[in-house]
């Protein structure tokens, strides 16, 4: 399945941009012209031919496709068209840590807080009152797209309160230096708002799923048995109820991952965050085939890989499922 998903996605990814009928070389030349380079008509034709040959765009589609597939296996996507001679892998490598850092932390945080909150909300013996006040607004926030929440947060915390920066990955006046503690703090400050908009908008989703699972769990016989055995409430809560209710949540985590990534692409655009979403956006507006291919390929690969990890980890959570014996 893993291989199939990646293969189909990459093929799709190769053919779709080519059906657009857009000429990336012409776009590139227009860009040059707009920058003030004057190109004579006869040179123009020669330039297009040279560029096409250089990028292999003049060869038959099947050949291009085969080259593409073999390159994809080696993570080699050639050079960017609009930012020639920068290599696609270089662009992706620069952007990837930003996106992964932002996404992984915010998704895990939202998952943990939401799941726990939802569990407590459904628990009959827990401190319900406080959670009943706090959580319902998050249920509603779950219906709001991340980036809209991001806009509101920018206005509240960055524009009005001036607590946090408006956008970007770090202040434009500082030089990136990953060993400098001050710079790390700066990066943290800049990532806080985009992360917050993802976390706030997705807590409700996890809480809602967990709550309904917990309510089902509490009707089960083993819960009654645990209570009858006189186990402490904390123990019944974590070992009996949460332990079982968290399983469908984990499956949901794998299933919603593509949605989270979709949302995050827009969040990065809103905040001007130097992640993969911005690279993709710039590539799309510049018809940069190779960058689009590289980015989409990496995103699909990352999601497929994350799903694989969740699949592998699942038996650890649920002893009933094991891959060793059939």
């Amino acid at each position, binding site marked *: 399945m893993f291989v199939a998903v990646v293969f189909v996605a990459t093929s799709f990814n190769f053919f779709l*941009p080519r059906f657009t009928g857009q000429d990336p070389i012409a776009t590139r030349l227009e860009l040059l012209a707009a920058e003030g380079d004057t190109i004579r008509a006869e040179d123009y034709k020669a330039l297009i031919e040279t560029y096409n040959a250089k990028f292999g765009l003049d060869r038959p589609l099947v050949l291009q496709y085969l080259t593409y597939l073999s390159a994809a296996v080696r993570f080699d996507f050639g050079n960017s068209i609009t930012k020639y001679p920068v290599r696609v892998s270089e662009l992706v490598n620069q952007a990837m840590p930003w996106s992964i850092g932002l996404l992984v932390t915010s998704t895990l945080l939202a998952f943990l807080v939401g799941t726990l909150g939802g569990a407590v909300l459904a628990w009959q013996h827990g401190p319900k009152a406080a959670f009943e006040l706090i959580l319902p607004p998050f249920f509603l926030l779950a219906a709001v797209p991340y980036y809209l929440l991001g806009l509101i947060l920018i206005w509240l915390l960055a524009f009005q309160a001036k607590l946090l920066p408006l956008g970007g990955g770090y202040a434009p006046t500082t030089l990136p230096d990953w060993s400098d503690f001050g710079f790390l703090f700066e990066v943290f400050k800049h990532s806080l708002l985009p992360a917050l908009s993802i976390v706030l908008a997705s807590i409700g989703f996890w809480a809602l799923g967990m709550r309904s699972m917990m309510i089902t769990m509490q009707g089960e016989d083993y819960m009654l048995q645990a209570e009858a055995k006189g186990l402490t409430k904390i123990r019944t809560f974590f070992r009996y109820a949460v332990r079982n209710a968290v399983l469908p949540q984990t499956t949901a985590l794998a299933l919603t991952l593509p949605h989270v990534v979709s949302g995050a692409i827009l969040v990065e655009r809103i905040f001007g965050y130097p992640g993969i979403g911005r690279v993709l956006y710039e590539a799309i507006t510049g018809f940069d085939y190779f960058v689009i291919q590289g980015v989409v390929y990496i995103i699909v690969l990352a999601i497929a890989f994350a799903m694989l990890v969740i699949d592998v980890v699942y038996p650890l959570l649920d002893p009933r499922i094991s891959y060793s014996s059939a």
Partner: protein
Amino acid sequence: MATNATTEPLASRGSTGASDALHRVGGLWRYMKRNPSIIAGSVMLGIIVLFWAFGTLMTSPKDAKDLAFAPPNKRPSLQNPHPCYSSENPRELCFAYDDIERPHLLGTDRLGKDILASFSQGIPQTVMIGLIAGSVGTVVGTLLAFGAGYYGGVLDATIRFIVDTLQTIPGILILIIITIAWRDVGGGEMTFIQLSLIIAMLAWLGPTRVIRSQVLVMKQRSYVEMARLSGMSGPEVILKEMVPNLMPFIVANFVLAVSSAILASIGLEALGLGDFSSNTLGMMIYHNIWYGSLVNGWWWWWSPPIIVIVILFIGLFMLSRGMDEWANPRLRRRF
């Protein structure tokens, strides 16, 4: 049909005669009173309809075109000249816009559009995108779901494989690429109707997956097996026995499909891949981002679209949750 009345009371309460239909509507109304989610969702969508009606009454469509740029009730005057005034644009030409004595209740935006008028045009456009893509998605999804779930075999495996694969790829990536392709075919111009058709291309994934699993469950029910054994053909069983019983479920999924289609459209538009001649909610968000209205403090421009979109999504969310309870009576006791 009489046999399944005991198993599915709401959905299969007969479908013959007007009194039966009336009875059904009455039952639905009585049920809705017990389902606060549907009420809350409908009220929220109702607020948006009222806002649209108010805007339509108070403004004319031409106010949604370039006019003036000012906060509420600070229209251009001699003391406060129109921003379009410049050496190329004689003052008279700029003030020609102003001969209509109509206040800009919500102010105007940076493009000079009356904001209320933009809403009275944009809300139906956004809803239209949702309805078109949602309907196409639900109809295609239902067909595929029945094909896959009822007939099984190679058809099921193929459809499931396609759905699983496409759902692994973030939809927005595919939509972005298709949108760019479509825009170029149309010579750089794209109407919002075309945008809705593009979104419809992926809108069937969710309904197919969810309805298929319901079809699989329903296939095992005794009345479906009964119908099959009594010699009904496949399409007959589907149309006469299964579709009526799954109808509430399909309707609930339709609301969800509309909501996600609107979400996708606003996402695409916010990225600058929308219909620039339209005033959809997504285009308003796009222009707000483009002109940096947040950092410029133009609150009267960026806040209304955000409020309307938030109410719209929460309303649709509540409605779909309520519908879910309605379609899945066993859920009712849980909440």
